[in-house]
C-alpha cells in the first residue's frame, strides 16, 4: 500500500478530507443529474423519442416477426439476442469467479462437496420443503416455456430453478450428507460439478444455436435461417425457446453455483454466518 497516506489518529472511518469532499460532491452530483433531467421528455410522454423512434416496430411488428406475444421476450431473445448472450456470459463469469476465488484453491484436484456445514433442518421445514421443491422446480419450467406469452422466460425460470435448489441445500445440508436419520428423504441436490456443467452447457447451447444459424448461411444468431419449418416467425419462435432454455440452464446452474461456492467459502474459512464480531461500525 505504498500510495496510502498515513492514517490520522483514531480514525475508523474515512479520513476527514474525504468525508468533507464527499459530503459536498454527492449533492452536487444529484443536482447535476436533476438539471440534466429537467430537459428530458416528460415522464410518460407518448411523443418522447424513446416512445416514437424504435419501439413502435417492436410493438407493432414484434409478434409477427418473431412469434413472441411478449414483446420484452421478442426484443430480449431475438432483436437483441446478442445482448442476452452477453448477459448469460456475465452471470457465468460471476459463477466462474466465485469458483476460482472460493472453491478451487490450494492443492485441491477436484471440486469440493457443495453445501454448508450446518443445516437448518427441522421436521416442519423438512415437510414443507418436500412439498414445495417439486412445485418450485416445475413452476420454473412453466415460467421458462410461458415466457413467450406472459412475463417470464429463461432468466426468471432459471432463477426460480436455482432457488429451488438452494432451498434444498438450506434445509438438507451438504450433498454428501446421509439422509436425516430416520427419514426416508433422499438427499438431492446438484453437485458443484453439476452446476458448472449446467451453466457451461447453457452458454455452449446458446452459442451453438447462433453458430448453427451461421452454418445455414445467416448471421450469428439469425435464427430465421434454421431449417425448422417454413414460417419464419414460427422458426424464430422455436429457436427463441431454445435459447431461453439455454439461458435457463446457465442461470439456474450459476445461481446454485454462487450459493454453493459462497457457502463452501464460509464453511472452509470459518466465517460466521452472523455479523462481524464487536460493536457496530
Amino acid at each position, binding site marked *: 500500500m505504498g500510495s496510502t497516506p498515513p492514517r490520522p489518529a483514531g480514525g475508523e472511518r474515512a479520513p476527514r478530507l474525504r468525508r468533507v469532499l464527499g459530503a459536498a460532491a454527492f449533492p452536487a452530483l444529484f443536482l447535476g443529474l436533476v438539471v440534466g433531467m429537467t430537459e428530458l421528455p416528460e415522464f410518460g410522454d407518448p411523443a418522447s423519442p424513446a416512445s416514437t423512434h424504435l419501439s413502435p416496430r417492436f410493438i407493432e411488428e414484434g409478434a409477427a416477426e418473431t412469434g413472441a406475444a411478449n414483446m420484452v421476450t421478442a426484443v430480449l431473445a431475438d432483436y437483441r439476442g446478442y445482448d442476452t448472450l452477453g448477459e448469460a456470459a456475465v452471470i457465468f463469469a460471476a459463477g466462474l*469467479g466465485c469458483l*476460482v476465488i472460493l472453491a478451487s484453491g490450494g492443492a485441491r*484436484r477436484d471440486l469440493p462437496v457443495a453445501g454448508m456445514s450446518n443445516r437448518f433442518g427441522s421436521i416442519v421445514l423438512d415437510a414443507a420443503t418436500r412439498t414445495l421443491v417439486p412445485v418450485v422446480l416445475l413452476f420454473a419450467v412453466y415460467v421458462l416455456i410461458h415466457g413467450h406469452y406472459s412475463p417470464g422466460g429463461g432468466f426468471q425460470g432459471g432463477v426460480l430453478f436455482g432457488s429451488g435448489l438452494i432451498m434444498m441445500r438450506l434445509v438438507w445440508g451438504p450433498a454428501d450428507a446421509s439422509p436425516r436419520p430416520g427419514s426416508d428423504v433422499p438427499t438431492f441436490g446438484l453437485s458443484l460439478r453439476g452446476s458448472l456443467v449446467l451453466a457451461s452447457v447453457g452458454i455452449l447451447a446458446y452459442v451453438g444455436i447462433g453458430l448453427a444459424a451461421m452454418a445455414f448461411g445467416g448471421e450469428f444468431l439469425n435464427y430465421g435461417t434454421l431449417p425448422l419449418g417454413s414460417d419464419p416467425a414460427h422458426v424464430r419462435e422455436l429457436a427463441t425457446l431454445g435459447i431461453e432454455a439455454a439461458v435457463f440452464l446457465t442461470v439456474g446452474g450459476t445461481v446454485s453455483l454462487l450459493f454453493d461456492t459462497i457457502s463452501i467459502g464460509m464453511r472452509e474459512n470459518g466465517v460466521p454466518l452472523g455479523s462481524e464480531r464487536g460493536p457496530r461500525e
Partner: protein
Amino acid sequence: MRDVLPGLLVALPLAGAAFLPLLAALSRRTTRVPALALHVAILAAALALFGSVAAGGPIRYALGGWPGPWGIELWLDGLSTLMAVLVSGMACFASFAQAFGSNEDGAARGSTPLREGLLRGALLLLVAGLLGIVATRDVFNLFVFLEISSLAAYTLVASGGGRSTVAAFRYLLAGTAAGSLYLFGVGFLYALTGTLNMDDLASRLPSVEADAALTVAVVLIAVGLSIKAALFPLHGWLPDTYVYTPTPAAGFIAAVMAKVSAYALLRLLGEVLAGTEAGAVVLEVMIWLGVAGVVAGGVLAVAQRAVTRMLAWSSISAMGMILIGVGMGSALAITGALFHMAAHALAKGCLFFGAGGVRARGGGDDVERWAGLGARAPWTFAALTVAALSLIGIPPAAGFFSKYYLLSASIAAGGPEGIASFAAIILSSLLATVYFLRVLEAVWFRAPAEAPDRASSGEPAGPVLPRPLALPVVGLAVLILLTGIFARPFERHVLPDWETGTARIAAEAP
C-alpha cells in the same frame, strides 16, 4: 469470409470460455493445448478480419439478421480490427503464460488442472468481453461486454488470494461505479434520441436541443469510461490491481484492459458524440488531465522501489499519453494514440511477465532483486531491456514512434494544450529514463545481492524466468522491434477508415 468472420470473432471466445472449465471439471486434465488453440484461432480470425477490412473496407454486421438500429450491429473498421488483433494477440501470450501459477506473494506454485481450466475460462471471457467492446456498434451492448470483461478481470485479479482479493474488491467497486455512470449516461442519450445504435445516435444528436441533458450524458459517459481507462485522477484502482494480480493475468490486464476503455472513449467521444459541444469541451479537458497524468504517473513511478508498482505508475503515465491523443483527435494524434496503445501493450505485457517471474523467485520485487540477473539469463533480460527502452522512447523500438506521432500532433495542435502536452511527453520520457535505467543498471552491471541462505545452498535451481514466462517475454520483444519498423498499417489502413467513417474529425495532413 467477410460475412462469417465477425460472428466468429465474438462467438469463439464465448464458446471457449464455457468449454474450458467444463473440460477441466470433467476430464481433470490440463487444458493448456485446447486453450492455446482457441486463442490462436481467435487471433487468426482477428488477423483475417484486419486484412479483409484493409482490402475491402469496413464491415457492418447485423447480429441476428436484424439491421440497426433495431438489432445490434458490429462495426469492423481499421481501428476496431487493429484493437482486436492487439487484444487477441496479447491473449495468446497470456494463455501461454498461464501455465505459470503463482500465489499472492508471487512465489511460483503448482496449479491443479481444475483451477487452471477455470482461470483459462476466465481469460477467454475477458477476451470475449474486450472483443465485444471493440466490435460493437451499440452503446448498451458495449455496457454488457464491459461488464463481462470486468467480472472476468476481477476473477483473474482475485485468483492470487490474500491481498489480491482486496485489490479485486476495490477494483470491483470502481469498475461497477464506472459501468453504472456509463449506463446512466446511455439512459440520458436514449431518452433524448430513442436509439442505442451509434450511427443512429450520431445522426439524431444534432437535432437534439436539450443542451444541459446532453452535457450530463456526455460527462457521465466520459467519466465512466475514464475510470476504466485510468485517466488521472480517476486512476485510484490501478496500482494495487496491477501489483497484486497474479503474473499471467497481470501481463494481459496491464497490457490491454485500460486501452480498450480508451478505445471506447475514442469511439464515443471522438466519433459518435463529436458533434456535440459538450463532447468537444470534455475532449479538451481530457488533454489537460492526460498531461497531468503523464507527469504524475512518471513522478510517482520514479518514487517506487518495487518494480511492479513502478510499472503500474508508468502505466498511468502511458494512459495519460494515449488520452492526450484521443483528446486532440487529429489524424496525427489518433495515430499516435493507437500506436502508443500497441507499443505500450507489447512493452508492458513483456515487463509484467518478466517482473512477475522475478518476483516469483522470492524476496519481493525490489529493484535489488534484479541485480545481476542479466548475466544469468541474457536473452530474456535483453528482451526486457528492449521493452524498457521502447517505453522510454528509444528508437527503433515501437515506443519511439508513438511519441513521435504524439509530439507531432502536439505541435500541429498548437496553443497552450499543445505546448503542455509536448512538454509533458518529453518530460515523461526523461522520467521513464530515470526509473527504467535504474532497473537496467541493476540487471546488467550490478552484482547480485547474495542472500545468506542462498549463498550456502548455492545458486537456486532452475532458470531465472520459468519457460511459460520467458517465451512470451522474448516474443513480445521481437514484436516491439518489428512494430516500430513496420508501422505502416497504422497509417495505411486504420486512419483512412477512421476518416471516411467520421467526416467530423478534421483531417490534418502532416
